[in-house]
């Protein structure tokens, strides 16, 4: 009965390095979402997966951001050549897609700090 898990919980990196953030959704959940929460910006949508496909990548802030999902389960968000403005909490959510009546359940987030 585990919820959504994310790793690492905290990540400190140097500007210019690449980072990978991992999300393990609730078992059986078909939809997976990534959001970013930063000071002054609130919560913003990054990307949505339906199974392993990402029909909507419109929220990714730049081409340095990419994400994939494998086996309809685990997802990885990769940020290349990190910048200080990438510092934020990255939240993952999963849900059972039921038309429009869908509830997203969130993980604890990964707090990323780019020095």
């Amino acid at each position, binding site marked *: 009965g585990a919820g959504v898990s994310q790793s690492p919980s905290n990540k400190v990196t140097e500007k210019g390095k690449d980072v990978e953030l991992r999300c393990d959704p609730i078992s059986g959940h078909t939809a997976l*979402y990534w959001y970013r929460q930063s000071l002054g910006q*609130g*919560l913003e949508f990054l990307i949505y997966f339906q199974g392993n496909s990402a*029909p*909507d990548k419109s929220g990714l802030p730049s081409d340095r951001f990419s994400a994939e999902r494998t086996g309809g389960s685990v997802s990885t968000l990769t940020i290349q050549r990190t910048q200080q403005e990438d510092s934020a909490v990255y939240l993952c*959510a999963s849900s059972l897609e039921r038309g429009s009546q869908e509830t997203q359940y969130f993980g604890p987030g990964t707090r990323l700090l780019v020095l």
Partner: protein
Amino acid sequence: AQSVTQPDIHITVSEGASLELRCNYSYGATPYLFWYVQSPGQGLQLLLKYFSGDTLVQGIKGFEAEFKRSQSSFNLRKPSVHWSDAAEYFCAIFNAGNNRKLIWGLGTSLAVNP
């Protein structure tokens, strides 16, 4: 454009007092509305949701919210606040269709005085 507005950035109440957090939305279709709570350093926990039916919905921790279509509002209420309710509260609307995602308000920070 779809949007969610939480007019109050910060609210302070005394323990035991009643609470109402405001949420207004702009959405062209049937809204699916949520309230989430985030305690310091924690993820987002679902408090309650409205999909259809009874416009007064009950949630966890003694919270309730009322959907008022005429006012485009979904205000969160609690009759008697506890110190442990101090947290950040977010209202969100689900955007279905091709661009599935939650659209968020900026949040209301709640402080509780003893």
